């Protein structure tokens, strides 16, 4: 027993040395997660700001002026052009000068004063329909605010129905709060899977795996010795991303680190198990890398990172059940934003435990097959 532990420790030491002694691979393990987290933390947002918009104000009244001032003052839109002719709308949209055009008809104020509905035409560039839809939503909210002010200023009754909206766990509805915690799982998944898949393949290709075989190591020990260093590296990467999230992006951490790390540990064991399984079946490094990539792509896309899981057809939602990343992202959100404790994470934890057990034991079985 003691010997087993000692042997495994020796193997872990050797693995860590092999990975970390080369400065290039050291840099490629720890720098990209931090850089990616920074860049994607800024880039991966569905929240809009600085959206160019153009105005066609045919009314030129106090009311239209107020409405435009509200749009300008929203902090979301930036006025880039003043149009005088309806034909110009097509030009500014087509040429991507403006994402949104607001057109106010010439009887805007007259209709408002007469208590009639007054149309505001809002045209959005639908080339990216998601962005356009969000922009239209912002305009709608600004117009609602304008209406309330107008009614208050002109002796009208306030709207008979007021809507109060509260968002749980992310009061200002910032996409970054969703994306950055999700990156803890995503970036470590990509790296650890690749690292583990490559580690055995590299030894195979260089012939050192055969040397490992003539040592007193048992297949099980070799596997543990290969798995733990990758888990360790994954945990370090996750910690780095967590630090960026908290210290740089200042996203408040609501939960307990213990719950998060328990989740991460299970997740990394599952990811490493997948990597080792892959590593046991491939012949060389290139295959390892390729198959890792072929696996990573659908797993990353079907994880809920970029598009919600609930939007997927049932078949694909069922497929995501074997995706450890899906659970890791959920755990990261629940612990980070909701402050969920271990008990609430159980629905996410047990599937990962099963995935880890299945992949690690099949990897061990595959190794043994390869060895004997």
């Amino acid at each position: 027993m003691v010997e087993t532990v000692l042997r495994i420790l020796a193997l872990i030491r050797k693995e860590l040395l092999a990975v970390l002694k080369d400065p290039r691979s050291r840099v490629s393990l720890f720098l990209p997660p931090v850089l990616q987290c920074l860049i994607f933390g800024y880039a991966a947002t569905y929240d809009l700001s600085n959206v160019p918009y153009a105005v066609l104000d045919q009314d030129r009244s106090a009311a239209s002026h107020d409405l435009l001032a509200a749009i300008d003052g929203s902090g979301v839109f930036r006025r880039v052009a003043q149009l005088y002719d309806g034909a110009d709308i097509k030009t500014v949209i087509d040429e991507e000068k403006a994402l949104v055009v607001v057109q106010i008809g010439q009887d805007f104020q007259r209709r408002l004063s007469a208590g009639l509905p007054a149309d505001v035409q809002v045209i959005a560039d639908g080339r990216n329909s998601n962005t356009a839809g969000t922009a239209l939503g912002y305009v709608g909210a600004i117009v609602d605010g304008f209406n309330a002010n107008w009614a208050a200023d002109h002796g009208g009754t306030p709207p008979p129905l007021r809507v109060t909206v509260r968002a749980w766990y992310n009061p200002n509805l910032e996409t970054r709060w969703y994306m950055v915690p999700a990156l803890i799982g995503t970036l470590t998944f990509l790296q650890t899977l690749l690292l583990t898949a490559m580690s055995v393949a590299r030894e195979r290709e260089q012939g050192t795996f055969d040397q490992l075989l003539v040592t007193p190591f048992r297949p099980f020990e070799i596997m543990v010795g290969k798995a733990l260093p990758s888990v360790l590296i994954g945990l370090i990467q996750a910690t780095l991303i967590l630090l960026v999230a908290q210290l740089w992006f200042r996203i408040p951490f609501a939960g307990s680190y213990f719950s998060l790390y328990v989740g991460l540990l299970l997740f990394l064991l599952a990811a490493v198990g997948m990597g080792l399984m892959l590593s046991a079946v491939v012949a060389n490094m290139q295959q390892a890398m390729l198959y890792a990539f072929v696996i990573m792509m659908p797993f990353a896309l079907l994880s809920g990172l970029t598009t919600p899981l609930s939007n997927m057809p049932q078949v694909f939602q069922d497929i995501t059940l074997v995706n450890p990343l899906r659970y890791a992202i959920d755990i990261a959100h629940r612990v980070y934003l909701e402050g969920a404790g271990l008990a609430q994470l159980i629905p996410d934890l047990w599937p990962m435990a099963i995935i880890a057990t299945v992949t690690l034991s099949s990897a061990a079985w595959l190794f043994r097959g390869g060895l004997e």
Partner: protein
Amino acid sequence: MTATSSPRAPLRASAASAKLQRLAALVRKETYQLFRDPSAIAIGVVIPLLLILLFGFALSLDVKNVPVAVVLERPSPEATELAAGFALSPYFASSELTSMRRAEELLLRQKVDGIIRIRSDFARQLNAASGEAQVLVYGVDANRARIIEAYAQGALAQFLARRSAEGYPPAEGGGAAVVQSRLWFNEADDSHYFLVPGLIVLIMTLIGAFLTTLVMAREWERGTLEALFVTPVRAGEIVLSKMAPYFVLGMLGLALCMFAAKFLFGVPFRGSVSILTAVSTLYLLVALAIGLLISSITRNQFVASMATLIITFLPALFLSGFLFDLHSMPTAVRILSYALPARYYVNLLQTLFLAGNIWSVILPDTAALAGMAVALLSLARAVTTKRLA
């Protein structure tokens, strides 16, 4: 095949035709190698098909049938009518509850994404013109939450409009501005319309940059490029012959995507196919050049593939304007995006697919891609030649 040189032809012509012959032989060799290599099949064929499948059928940003809980604290005709508005809306799959506590439990367990709370004194308040409906959304997925919020507001506004049509006092005393919104180029608000152009960019990047990097880095690692060098083949010819099969594979990927876009997803194509082919050629050349450059510089499969992933693939997904709006990014990130070829290609594709031949978009973006192609290709040739010689 290439023309055979006649013995009397001038020296220059025979040299040129020998060059062509060498090139043809090399291209043939590379093509065989490509089709024999299971990894090339995996990246060139399996992944594109997988991506088309996922983008076409699995990924969608369209919010429909959102599970929401409508909490009716005390039934009244008004409250029931409002709840019915949610039940009938195509955007919501609503379930009616009577207790807020139960609804919050469902929200916590993510069984519902939002709660609409109609308080017990709703009817009285509404008739006193001070009604209140509370909307609670699960905010973790902020984008989805915002869309749900907007739909909920819309459903409530419709409820008010129906009431005022039935003779109840109008919503606002002094008239109200009403937004008439139109989504140009994508009237049906179908997210496939912008996912498909992005899909093409991902596939072209994958074949052009990732596959080339991988194959070339392997040749560097194994020294087979040096072996080629002792033959009469010139470095430039090696580079050219390496690129040719991947170029063809990339164009096939494009054709496949166009086919899927038209027949599978029903995405319109409003521009001209020849412009699409031209700009795709440019982008593919840029991607191939990046692949060659990275592999020549790193000469190591692992480092090369990581570098390609970080330099080409992830930015094509995140920084190209394909998913996330570029205007809203901080200035530094926006400036960075100008250095990425994917940005121009995404913009070109979205315009060609949905808006048509808008020259003021096509010309500058094409010029940027062409400039990058020339610069990167000459750089790739210089680096590869230098490393070989």
